[in-house]
């Protein structure tokens, strides 16, 4: 969607235009769903959270201003906060695993990762072992398709910091995936 069209839809949605909000929903629903799915790892929870995100967006859109952040970053921040609230509620889940904890077992010699297709569940489990910021970058880059610039806006860091997080995230994922292949 081009910037001009997006601005028009957002302005109309701020005035509670049903069709404009419906169009924004149609455009963003898949990305928000994928974001929540890879954060929480359950399709049912992802549906609940996706709906919650749009309901919150509807409540708050009247206060949205273009000066602060792009609309997509604003919407994904709502998604991030909704997921954080979800984790707080789901006390059974141990969410954050520090990067130091995911160091792979020592291996001898180079191990070639097989670029086999892993299931969504396997990939989600691996991602869930990254630090919070790394998860944000990997999910938004590889599954939602946001640019580094949008991700930087979203997490409130520079594009350089996003690249560094991406580097560390892929490094950790490489180790995690090698570890899980070694387990089999």
């Amino acid at each position, binding site marked *: 969607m081009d910037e001009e069209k997006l601005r028009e839809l957002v302005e109309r949605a701020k005035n*509670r*235009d*049903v069709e404009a*909000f*419906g169009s924004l*929903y*149609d455009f963003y*629903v*898949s990305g928000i*769903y*994928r974001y929540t*799915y*890879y954060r929480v790892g359950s*399709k*049912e*929870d*992802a*549906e*609940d959270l*996706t*709906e*919650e995100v*749009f*309901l*919150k967006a*509807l*409540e708050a859109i009247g206060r949205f201003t273009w000066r602060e952040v792009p609309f997509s970053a604003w919407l994904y921040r709502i998604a991030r906060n909704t997921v954080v*609230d*979800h984790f707080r*509620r789901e006390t059974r889940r141990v969410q954050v695993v520090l990067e130091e904890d995911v160091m792979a077992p020592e291996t001898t010699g*180079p191990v*070639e*990762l097989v*670029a*086999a*297709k*892993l*299931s*969504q569940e396997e*990939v989600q489990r691996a991602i869930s072992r990254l630090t919070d910021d790394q998860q944000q970058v*990997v999910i938004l880059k*590889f*599954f939602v398709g946001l640019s*580094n610039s949008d991700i930087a806006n979203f997490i409130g860091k520079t594009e*350089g910091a996003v*690249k*560094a997080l*991406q*580097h560390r995230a*892929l*490094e950790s*994922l*490489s180790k995690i*995936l*090698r570890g899980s292949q070694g387990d089999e």
Partner: protein
Amino acid sequence: MNKDFDEKELKDKKLEDALEECLDLVRTNKETVQDCLSRYPNLREKLEPLLRAAVILQATPSVEPSPEFRVRTRQALIEKVSVPAAVAARRLRPRRLLMQLVAAALIFLLIVGGIAAASTSALPTSPLYPVKLGIEKVQLALATSDAARANLRIRFAERRLDELQEMVKLKESRAIQRIANAINKETGEAFEETRNLSGTDKDVLLDKLVNLTERQQAVLQRVYDKAPEEAKAALLHAQEVSRRGHERAAEALRGIRERKIKPEEKFPAKPPVKRSPPGQLKKGEGTPGKSSKSGHGSENGRGTENSQGSRNFLDQKPL
């Protein structure tokens, strides 16, 4: 020490830039991982596992929300968008006198121009349709009592139902969806106005609402099979909302009549526990999105409004 640190930082920066470039080239199928690695022989050892991990992520099958979820949630949001606007309009009542004066002037002009007469039979696809809706707004502004406004809302809901049938004949799917929402909206407003009434007025209007919602369900059921596929979800939803509205109106009417029989009963009986609709909406009492499993929407006193935002506006308060 500082020199070592700077050198490491520089190496990392080079690696991050090379990684970014390779990710872009591989993602857009301009180069393979091997092609890209050959560009950076000095970084190959560090770059290769990173690119392999990225390829695995890119090869993961996409996860998408189900079509049923998309439609259900969209309907719930649309319903939610409509309701607060009506509430906001209600807050403008202190300005009603001024609005009535302006409205009277407008209606005079419209009648003189003959446009009003021409628009009365306008359908949603007609250029005169906005005039028809404008006149309805003027009529509402001129109404001097809740009962008069409730009667108007009922009349407008009847009109929308007639328009819906015409739009189904014309296979105008967007108009069908809009009118299906408008039917629920007008009916919801009629309920709101009726809520404020008492005595015979309330009795009469509840009776009208029972008949209105009964007819709505019959018409919505009848046109469903003939409607375009993309409009069916909206019709189904409108039918469900109408069904629940019918139950509530009938229940309120029964309550009033029972109290007339037993005048010693001072307070209305507790309303019965709501039951879920039979499988038309997936989760909760017409509350798409909150599964009983998670049940987290209203914890800590927060999120209640959001999590129940899709709640049917017809059954938020007792009638």
